């Protein structure tokens, strides 16, 4: 029983643990997160000081650069737990942090000059929200505790809801924000109820302790099983797994395109950064269900994309299919009975896949943002005709991204897929791997159609030939993305070396 006497003892215990918890290592481990959090708060301050508008870009770049540099330093350091085991850094979480911060930086650069008219006045709020989202992602992958993970999830989600509705004079943007918010809140409620049930069954929120407890008797209690499943369902919403994927095309299409780049890459990476190591929450008997859900996700994404004429919507469906591919790793882990070796191999595959996907997807959506800014509100397949002649550099970059999304050799996307299917084959899940590969081939249908439209179909008679120049920063980012895709495809060893 809880009595007043036990509660009275709590403060002294708390005081003791505060001294144990805040060590020097904690500050170093939290540096990337703190850089972004301080940057976001500073942005609010800068925003209210008259004449300090010039400082806004400085704050954004400085905090993201600090986060990137400190995360880079963590890549070579050994893994450690800080703050009483509620937060941890490892080479894997450091690489995830790099993915988030680079993704946010790219999204911010694509956003420069994207917004028109009255919205420009709100760039302080915009920048603040854009710095908060990656901070939440960092907490998610570093969390050693479900409470910290939940806080990270919300720090990521709330800014993105607001950002997707940022063009609030446009009906599609507000509708996207509203849909994203409603389904996100619904998913968060599932996650919370699942967490609460897992806590009721086990009495702990620590992910490490849960992992060992789920090896034993606890895992067979119905409360823990239902809790684990509900918790996972909440995150499946976030990564758009079948049957929780229907919101994705609407939200990606309606949101401002620079924000879509971050949603497509960062959110997905952060959620898988948690899901893949936390597969232990599911019972081994769920292997078949998880594999089926992953394959159905791939099918839903690829078949949905085939019939789209709006390119942004097509890429949104393609994002669903990619989520399905990464999810196959969870089936692989379950099939191995949760062996540590397969888990770390899967985390490495996730990292490679997501790093390649960062460059590919950011570049592809970013190119759409550049084209949209030149006067076109909606990029249709028709609108891409003749792009190869008008803007060869843009069309070449788009070709690289499409080939990488399709998993063609010599691009980063190929090795990402290769590593996923390797894990499956090692677990003797040949049928699943073959089906997955076949579904990836369907995807080539629409990726190649974009390439063919750009290079082979001429501009129709009398159609306006737009020659508006792109801004330099956005072009540079697109070039970096294309170079990154090719680098990861031609020299995958360098990145795999980073993983150790």
């Amino acid at each position: 029983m809880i009595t007043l006497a036990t509660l009275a003892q709590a403060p002294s215990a708390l005081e003791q643990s505060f001294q144990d918890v805040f060590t020097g290592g904690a500050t170093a481990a939290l540096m990337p997160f703190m850089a972004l959090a301080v940057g976001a708060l500073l942005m609010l301050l800068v925003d209210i000081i008259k004449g300090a508008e010039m400082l806004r870009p400085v704050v954004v770049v400085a905090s993201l650069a600090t986060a990137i540099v400190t995360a880079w330093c963590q890549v070579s350091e050994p893994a450690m737990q800080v703050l009483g085991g509620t937060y941890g850094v490892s080479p894997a979480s450091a690489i995830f942090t790099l993915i988030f911060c680079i993704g946010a930086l790219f999204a911010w650069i694509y956003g420069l000059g994207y917004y028109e008219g009255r919205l420009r006045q709100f760039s302080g709020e915009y920048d603040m929200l854009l710095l908060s989202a990656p901070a939440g992602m960092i907490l998610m992958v570093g969390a050693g505790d479900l409470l910290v993970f939940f806080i990270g999830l919300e720090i990521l989600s709330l800014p993105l809801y607001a950002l997707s509705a940022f063009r609030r004079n446009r009906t599609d943007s507000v509708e996207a924000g509203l849909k994203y918010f409603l389904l996100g809140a619904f998913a968060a409620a599932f996650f919370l109820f699942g967490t609460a049930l897992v806590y009721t069954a086990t009495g702990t929120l620590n992910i490490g302790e849960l992992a060992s407890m789920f090896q034993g008797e606890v895992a067979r209690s119905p409360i823990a099983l239902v809790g684990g499943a509900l918790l996972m369902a909440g995150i499946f919403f976030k990564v758009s797994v079948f049957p929780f994927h229907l919101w994705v095309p609407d939200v990606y299409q309606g949101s401002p395109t620079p924000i879509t780049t971050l949603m497509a890459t960062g959110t997905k990476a952060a959620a898988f950064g948690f899901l893949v190591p936390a597969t232990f929450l599911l019972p081994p008997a769920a292997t078949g269900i998880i594999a089926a859900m992953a394959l159905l996700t791939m099918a839903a994404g690829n078949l949905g994309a085939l019939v789209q004429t709006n390119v942004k919507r097509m890429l949104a469906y393609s994002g669903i299919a990619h989520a399905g591919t990464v999810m196959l790793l969870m089936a692989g882990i379950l099939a191995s009975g949760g062996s540590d070796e397969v888990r770390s191999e899967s985390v490495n595959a996730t990292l490679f896949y997501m790093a390649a996907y960062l460059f590919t997807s950011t570049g592809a959506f970013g190119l759409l943002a550049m084209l949209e800014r030149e006067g076109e509100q909606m990029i249709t397949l028709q609108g891409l005709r003749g792009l190869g002649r008008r803007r060869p550099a843009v069309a070449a970059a788009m070709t690289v991204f499409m080939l990488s999304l399709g998993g063609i050799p010599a691009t980063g996307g190929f090795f990402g897929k290769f590593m996923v299917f390797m894990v499956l084959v090692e677990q003797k899940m040949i049928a699943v791997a073959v089906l997955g590969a076949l579904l990836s081939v369907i995807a080539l249908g629409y990726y190649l159609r974009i390439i063919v439209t750009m290079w082979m179909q001429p501009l129709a008679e009398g159609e306006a030939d737009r020659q508006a120049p792109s801004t330099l920063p956005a072009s540079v980012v697109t070039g970096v993305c294309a170079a990154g895709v090719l680098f990861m495809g031609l020299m995958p060893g360098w990145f795999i070396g980073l993983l150790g």
Partner: protein
Amino acid sequence: MNVPTEHLLILAAVLFSLGALGFLLRRNLIVILASVELMLNAANLTFLAGARAHSSVGPLNLDGPIFALFVILVAACEAALGLALVIAFYRQKQSVDIEAAAELRG
């Protein structure tokens, strides 16, 4: 009076299901927001029930109540943002019916 933990869990499950049903079936955005709040509070009740059950057999377990406090905080943030989005939506459509959000599809 000592309510068994199972009863609290059943109550929480009923509240959660009512919230989920309300979310899926109701068309008014304000009611949908209220349904989400109901689901979050079902989770809070579960956290407190779990903490009580564990504290009665072992050392004081405060993880659950602390989580519940954070959930209350996050629920407030979500409500603020959600209502702001509903207002932005209402300004455009003159309606808070979810059916009015039908522009993006295909």
